[in-house]
């Protein structure tokens, strides 16, 4: 199933958040959404969820989980199976298997019996990611899933995204995005500036209104960076 948005505009308190967005997220691809803070990425994702939630084929991980949950980590992950049987009977063998796999994949076996509220930001993100994986949906929709994570866990999340059938990922780390995405949607000011299958300096310059340079490492990876002069200019 492709996810389609056509001519979507949204104003909140007279401020334009989304401005005539038309795009298709293709099944089987990892689409990365890039853009400066406040350009409407999260709002776009929420609109997609609003439109397609009833298909039960989306799993979502928000930027952060706020408030007092008062649930154990294991309970939180088990909620992923709610739509299967509404918990009128216990978890099936299939439910349990999905949960165990997700827990193992996100490396949180030792956290299962802790209170979710006592975890660090990064641990909470991994728990929520495990919960999304255990939903076993066609689509994974992730809003900055790696923002609080150390390098080894960033890799774990990226591996999980690659294994997913289809995904939409909002990211800030451009180089991580360059390694992960099959397709890129570049946004600024509530608009899609461009859609592309590869990231280039020009596209990044247009999106972030900065001057990016590119280099290729000895093992063949492309790295985008901001020239030193420009960084110091910004600091002034």
């Amino acid at each position, binding site marked *: 199933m492709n996810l389609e948005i056509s001519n979507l505009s949204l104003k909140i308190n007279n401020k334009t958040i989304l401005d005539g967005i038309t795009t298709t997220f293709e099944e089987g691809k990892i689409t990365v959404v890039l853009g400066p803070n406040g350009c409407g990425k999260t709002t776009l994702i929420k609109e997609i969820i*609003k439109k397609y*939630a009833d298909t039960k084929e989306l799993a979502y*991980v928000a930027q952060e989980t706020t*408030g007092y*949950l008062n649930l*154990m980590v294991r*309970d939180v992950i088990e*909620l992923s199976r*709610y739509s299967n049987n509404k*918990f009128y009977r216990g978890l099936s063998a299939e439910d349990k298997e999905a949960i165990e796999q997700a827990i193992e994949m996100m490396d949180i076996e030792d956290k299962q019996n802790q209170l979710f509220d006592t975890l660090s930001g990064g641990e909470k993100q991994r728990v929520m990611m495990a919960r999304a994986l255990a939903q076993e949906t066609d689509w994974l929709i992730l809003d900055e899933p790696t923002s609080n994570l150390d390098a080894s866990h960033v890799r774990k999340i990226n591996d999980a995204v690659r294994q997913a059938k289809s995904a939409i990922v909002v990211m800030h780390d451009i180089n991580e995005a360059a390694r992960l995405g099959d397709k890129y949607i570049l946004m600024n000011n509530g608009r899609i500036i461009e859609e592309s299958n590869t990231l280039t300096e020009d596209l990044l310059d247009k999106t972030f209104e900065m001057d990016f340079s590119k280099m290729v490492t000895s093992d063949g990876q492309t790295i985008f960076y901001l020239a030193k002069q420009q960084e110091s200019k910004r600091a002034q």
Partner: protein
Amino acid sequence: MAVSCCLGSSNIALSSIFDFLFGRGETLPETTVTIITKLRIPRVLTAALIGGALASIGAVMQGIFKNPMADPSVLGISSGAALGAAIAIVVGLNGVIIGAFTGAYIGAVIGAVLTWFIIITIAKSSGEYDTSSTLLAGIATSSLMSALITVIMTLNLQKMERIYMWMLGTFSASTVSKTIILAIVVMLGLIALIIFAPMIDVLKLGKETAETLGVKQGRTLAILMTISSIILAFCVANAGVIGFVGLIIPHIVSFFKVYKMRSKIIMCFLVGAIFTVICDTICKIVIAPGELPIGAVTSLIGAPYFLFLLLKARRQNGGAL
């Protein structure tokens, strides 16, 4: 519960209560039997039902608002119900409709639902429900409702005593027929809350995630709050505003590692019932033949215990209850 049945302005031996409960009542004096069936048993059952209901609703509200401080009296819904009941009494709608079902019940239900509607409208304007604005809206609404009750009392001095009861809380007005109505409402409401309980856990994951799991936030909140408001209104119409039970019992239950909403609601009901019956027993004996208001006793016992739990939780897991 049996002990609570013995104690009161005229003491009845514990053996008499057991004689009565196990069908040997015919050997007892008639006045004793009357006191047990007409006064003591309705009162203990009312205390248990209301205590249990308040604790369960407290757990539901803490879950819905994702806030450990949420509780029907903090959110002002109890005062809303009390105001509704007070207005019903003052304008003379307190006549009997069917059996012991009086206008005060209807006033309380309207008051509770309206207050809930005001709070949710204010809380919703910020997009999510789990913000502190909900709690602040509740505290402000609560003060407003209490102030209005005070105004109504002052304007109707002849009915003041009756209304004053709602401000303090007491089980002393319990009768057999009132207890039966209360039991029906509380039990039906509790069953509904237990059925919907896992939806509260799903909502805690956030609006969007809940939607992907098939739980719609707006609709679910409306259902849960309507059920809670109705139960609460009947509790308030029977025994007034009893603070603190809804706030502390869910934390006591969490402290014993009961977290999932379905088991939590059931456990809260049991613990809340026991706690309130004990508190009511204390009310009856401390200054006998006079009585203390139940709200004062629940706070006197509950508050220090709550502080103790808070301290212990801080040591154990960094502040999270």
